[in-house]
């Protein structure tokens, strides 16, 4: 799921490992209670080590500054709508930002995000698709950032939401 959102999350989890079951079964109730109490104290004192640490590298560092923005126009009968912004964070990393009002059709599965030189999805696999750049995939509605691996040339004026499998546009936005 993280992959589909375009995130490159790093998840670090530490798990305590123990084999007390056989040992506990052989002890009296009092002994068992004492052991369980001790175990509870130990695990409580180690609770910080058991926390999940997630580093979301897809979030902008510091303030995100939009350079171009636009509103999505729905296509193919989908409910697609919302604002889209192209900009940079304080580390000069490029991001595509969908506003909290963003919505599209998700029941069909993965929705791909393309930067395009026009509102029309113009594929040309034989020449390396010079008019399209796949920049991410949508898997949820609402506000989200998508980190771009490189800056977007100025002639890529549109964002297109596209279902690759069916070859159907869900919506597009011109970024001004």
């Amino acid at each position, binding site marked *: 799921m993280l992959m589909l959102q375009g995130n490159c999350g790093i998840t670090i989890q530490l798990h305590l490992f123990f084999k007390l079951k056989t040992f506990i079964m052989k002890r009296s109730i009092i002994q068992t209670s004492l052991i369980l109490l001790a175990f509870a104290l130990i695990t409580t004192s180690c609770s910080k080590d058991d926390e999940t640490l997630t580093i979301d590298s897809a979030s902008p560092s510091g303030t995100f500054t939009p350079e171009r923005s636009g509103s999505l126009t729905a*296509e*193919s009968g989908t409910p697609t709508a919302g604002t889209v912004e192209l900009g940079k964070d304080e580390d000069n990393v490029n991001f595509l930002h969908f506003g909290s009002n963003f919505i599209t059709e998700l*029941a069909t*599965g993965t929705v*791909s995000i393309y930067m395009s030189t026009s509102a029309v999805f113009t*594929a040309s696999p034989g020449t390396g698709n010079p008019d399209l750049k796949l920049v991410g*995939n949508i898997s949820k509605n609402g506000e989200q950032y998508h980190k771009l691996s490189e800056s977007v040339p100025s002639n890529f004026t549109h964002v297109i939401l596209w279902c*690759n499998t*069916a070859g159907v546009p869900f919506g597009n936005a011109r970024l001004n």
Partner: protein
Amino acid sequence: MMTLLYKALFMAICLLYLIPAQGQNGWTRATKGFYAQASLSHFSTGNYYSSNSTLFVGGSTFQSSGLLLYGEYGISNRFTAVVDIPLLLLHRFTTTETAVGTGSAKLGIKYGLIKKIPLALQVDVEIPTNDGVTLVNTKEPNSLGIKEQINLPTSDGEFNVWTTAAISKSSSSGKTFGSLYGAMNFRTESFSNQFQAGLEIGQLLFDKLYLIGKLKIQEKVVDGSSSASASFLYGEGTTFTSYGITAMYKLDSKWKIVAAFSDYTGVIIQRRNIYDGPTFSLGLALER
């Protein structure tokens, strides 16, 4: 008088057996009479009509194959139980893995309102067999190295009720027959209700072969609030005109081979939110 009555009764029974099943018609089965059919179907196309009837042809080819079971049983002279179950459905695009499952099960009761005309009312409940979500991966990752997913549910995940009224007429010889019907599909889960109407005309040739031409329209009746507008497998907002032909060949007094072809057109009602292509099916039927 009794002779006339017997003749009429005999003719009615003959007509009952002459009328091929799995169509919408006004006939009901005789008490303890039954019809059972198992068939294989295949559908393949790359033509998708969106919710606003725009045709897209650039995507992968969608394919659907199925093992379909259909049955009718005469509970009484007026009541017929109907079962329609897509036992096994295989959905896939040529670029994706295959979704496998059972389709929504349709269970119904048909009541012969007027036997002489004949006119029948049928109520079917369509029971979902899953929650309407069957995600499959693409075979190859995209340029970002991600295998995309697409939802290819074998059942739409919603409970709905079909109510159908059908009227039929046959020639005195029983070799030519026709039916008109109208049906409402009351859907749940915020999906739009649907209306269907159709015409079927059949002819018995060489006392062995039935040929039945079919024409059907489907229209959306009430706008639902579902956001699943683009999910063609949910049928939300799906409208069409379909036509087809069914051939039934009598192997003996009980067994039949059934072959059918159907396709869509936009002649009467436009195609919306639908993959447009031909369906072929071949099956075996047992009737008593």
